[in-house]
């Protein structure tokens, strides 16, 4: 329960008087607050700086150090104050959390110091307010990366881990060339051959100076054999490298899908396709275009250059700005091309023969290139042409600084943290907060179980369980649970968990099918509404007259699951918000021990509108005085 509204709990409880005339059963007894202190000021002395606040302010969050009885360990009898030997500056934000319900992260504070203080005072960082959470997460990520870098460097300086197999060593060598000399050699050799290949492609087309048919022959055709050998050598090296990487990759499927491997494949494919294809006239045209793809080998340099990778990543992350740029340019081009075409339509020998032809003029003008191959001749055309070039400057100048600033931010940020990783963290954060919040609704069911476990044990006379279990909830929690209990009594229904609810649906389906007991009435509507698809499962049950007692016992056994084995979970005084996530998950998805504590409601059947309550199973139950409730627990 959000403790900020704990102040309104008295109001909610008072408003519960509105249910009383509607209810038919007696209400449970209110928890008495025997140790009711008047609201007092308490003094918190943090390394000499004194903070004062009301006791009820601190009681708002009973899962933290200051809200629970743990602070009594720090109580100083002589000075009648609580002394903490911690940082008073950070304590300011922690105390403000109690006052306002929002935890803020001060930007000037060091992230690890802040984390330590939060851990000391028992506050989970996930509840930092949205205003400061981004900053907090960024700083934490940077810190974690810095620690990782330090660790990596340390590891790098040590010897290689001995238990990497050959494949893993190779992969490491490929990814981090400076780990071993062989890797470095391989790195430089491939880089050299990429450069050779690119230069070859370029030089191939340079005219070599032999006049043949009054036309300069490109070098590629003059020394075709030499160039072919060079090309073959490069492609062989690239192929070997690709195959080695493929072999060494820990996840081959992911490797194949990665961008770098696609570039590799595109770089070497044209050669092989060229080998396979015959010297047919038709396909040689296509073959020539395939050679264009050889230029993609230059992208292989991005493995060797971090800056190139950053550039690629920037362009990817600025996709929306680039898209906007493109879109606005297209709009402007179409508008101005139309205008120019119609403006120039009148003039003779105009180059603006059609609107698509004017596109070229518009693009050249808007990007302020101005080739001069198309110029307007009419006055109207010149006016619109000048407007076109002015607006071109504006349209292009607007998104470019965004792209530039993006690039510089990423470049300065060591770009290792992906957006993808941030999304995962966001999901984890939301999941953790959700789990903590769900803890509050489960807290009621849990405490109901606790209370009834105690009562059952008292009934059966075994007092071996710790009696302090009943005191583990705070005053506010017990009052809140009493309120929910009153609501249950008013409506004659109980809160249950989702799993038990579906289980009950199944049970009622079985009930409906097999029993003709008059006490189980009005269930035909049930299967129709809730679990109609589940009732199909019950068709295999024999349609004999199952005795009502056996049915009842099945129902009771299935409806009651009490955890006896989680003493440590019950005895923790810190529940709900600050339960560690795995613990909370464990509590929520439990499925272990089943014991029977069969207790039923001795309600007069006339008063209750729901006639499907089971009759008391054991007639030897003490009547009257004992207020015992049927439990449908986790």
């Amino acid at each position, binding site marked *: *329960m959000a403790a*900020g*509204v704990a*102040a*309104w*709990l*008295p*109001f*909610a*409880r*008072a*408003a*519960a*008087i*509105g*249910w*009383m*005339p*509607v*209810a*038919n*059963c*007696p*209400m449970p*007894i*209110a928890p*008495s*607050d025997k140790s009711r202190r*008047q*609201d007092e000021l308490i003094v918190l002395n943090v390394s000499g700086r004194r903070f004062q606040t*009301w006791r009820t302010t601190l009681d708002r969050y009973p899962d933290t150090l200051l809200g629970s009885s743990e602070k009594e360990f720090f109580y100083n009898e002589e000075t009648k104050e609580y002394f903490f030997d911690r940082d008073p500056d950070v304590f300011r934000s922690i105390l403000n959390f109690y006052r306002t319900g929002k935890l803020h992260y001060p930007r000037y504070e060091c992230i690890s110091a802040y984390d330590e203080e939060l851990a000391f005072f028992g506050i989970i960082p996930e509840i930092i307010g949205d205003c400061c959470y981004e900053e907090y997460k960024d700083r934490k990520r940077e810190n974690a990366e810095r620690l990782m870098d330090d660790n990596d460097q340390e590891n790098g300086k040590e010897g290689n881990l001995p238990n990497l197999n050959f494949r893993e060593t190779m992969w490491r060598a490929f990814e981090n060339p400076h780990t071993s000399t062989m890797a470095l050699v391989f790195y430089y050799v491939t880089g050299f051959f990429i450069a050779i290949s690119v230069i070859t492609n370029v030089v191939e087309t340079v005219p070599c100076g032999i006049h043949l048919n009054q036309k300069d022959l490109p070098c590629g055709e003059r020394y075709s054999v030499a160039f072919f050998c060079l090309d073959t050598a490069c492609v062989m090296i690239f192929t070997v490298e690709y195959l080695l990487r493929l072999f060494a990759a820990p996840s081959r499927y992911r490797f194949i899908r990665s961008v770098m491997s696609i570039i590799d494949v595109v770089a070497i494919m044209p050669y092989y396709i060229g080998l396979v294809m015959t010297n047919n006239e038709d396909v040689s045209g296509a073959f020539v275009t395939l050679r264009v793809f050889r230029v993609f080998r230059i992208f292989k340099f991005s493995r060797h250059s971090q800056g190139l990778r950053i550039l690629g990543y920037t362009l990817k992350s600025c996709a929306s700005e680039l898209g906007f740029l493109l879109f606005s340019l297209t709009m402007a081009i179409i508008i101005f091309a139309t205008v120019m075409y119609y403006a120039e339509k009148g003039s003779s020998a105009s180059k603006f023969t059609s609107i698509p032809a004017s596109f070229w003029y518009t693009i050249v003008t808007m990007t302020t290139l101005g080739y001069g191959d198309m110029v307007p001749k009419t006055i109207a055309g010149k006016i619109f042409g000048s407007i076109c070039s002015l607006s071109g400057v504006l349209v292009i100048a607007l998104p470019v600084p965004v792209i530039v600033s993006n690039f510089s931010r990423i470049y300065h940020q060591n770009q290792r943290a992906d957006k993808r990783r941030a999304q995962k963290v966001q999901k984890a954060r939301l999941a953790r907060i959700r789990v903590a919040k769900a803890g*509050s*609704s489960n807290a009621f069911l849990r405490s109901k179980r606790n209370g009834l476990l105690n009562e059952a044990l008292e009934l059966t006379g075994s007092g071996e369980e710790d009696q302090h279990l009943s005191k583990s909830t705070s005053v506010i929690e017990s009052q*809140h649970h009493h*309120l929910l209990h*009153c*609501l249950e009594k*008013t*409506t004659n*229904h*109980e*809160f*249950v*968990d989702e799993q*038990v*609810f579906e289980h*009950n*649906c199944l049970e*009622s389906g079985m009930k409906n099918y097999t029993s003709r007991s008059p006490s189980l009435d009005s269930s035909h*509507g*049930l299967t129709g*509404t*809730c679990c109609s698809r589940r009732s199909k499962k019950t068709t295999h049950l024999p349609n004999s007259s199952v005795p009502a007692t056996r049915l009842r016992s099945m129902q009771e056994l299935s*409806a009651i699951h009490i955890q006896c084995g989680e003493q440590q979970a019950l005895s923790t005084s810190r529940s709900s918000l600050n339960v560690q996530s795995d613990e909370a998950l464990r509590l929520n998805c439990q499925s272990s021990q089943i014991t029977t504590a069969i207790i039923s409601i001795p309600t007069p059947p006339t*008063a209750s*509108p*729901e006639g*499907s*309550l089971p009759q008391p199973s054991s007639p030897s139950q003490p009547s009257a005085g004992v207020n015992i409730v049927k439990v*449908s627990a986790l």
Partner: protein
Amino acid sequence: MSGCTRRCKMGIVKFARSIHRLVTGTLNKDKPEDELEMTVVCHRPEGLEQLEAQTNFTKRELQILYRGFKNECPSGLVNEETFKQIYAQFFPHGDASTYAHYLFNAFDSGQNGSVKFEDFVMALSILLRGSIREKLRWTFNLYDLNKDGYINKEEMTDIVRAIYDMMGKYTYPVLKDEAPRQHVDAFFQKMDKNKDGVVTLDEFIVSCQEDDNIMQSLQLFENVI
């Protein structure tokens, strides 16, 4: 025809003005003032002594109440949305908004859409420190949705349905659609003495005083503050 001319002239004047603004490059000064809505309305309650006289609380209790109130609503007024949110925090299983709406109407004695601290404290005074008759009258007022002095079956069904909504979906036994109606029928059986289909205030008070359970439960929350 004159209206048309006038409109044309106004349009031309506006156009000329906007061209002028474009040329001189001055920013539009009207906009910020338009957007500044008066959202900040603050309300301060009357003095502590006055409230102490009007209610059954002591000064200390009023202080504690006001501190909690002011913490949640610094502006001094609770509107219905905030009220619903606050009330819903206590009932995470189901949907408390309908019942909170009825509660809000019962608290908002002035029917002006917001609850001030005085309304809040007067209602609490009745509920926690009032006589049985006052409590029952407040409850009758809560049930009487259209404030006409009679509770009929539809109003009662709405209220009971709102209460059942707060339970949520996962209940034992499973919540059926007829449950609220059956509950209301039982209620009317008990309360409607002359069987005329409506419950008046006197019938309500008399019937409640006859029922021991209700009498007992009304005393339940006396030590809330």
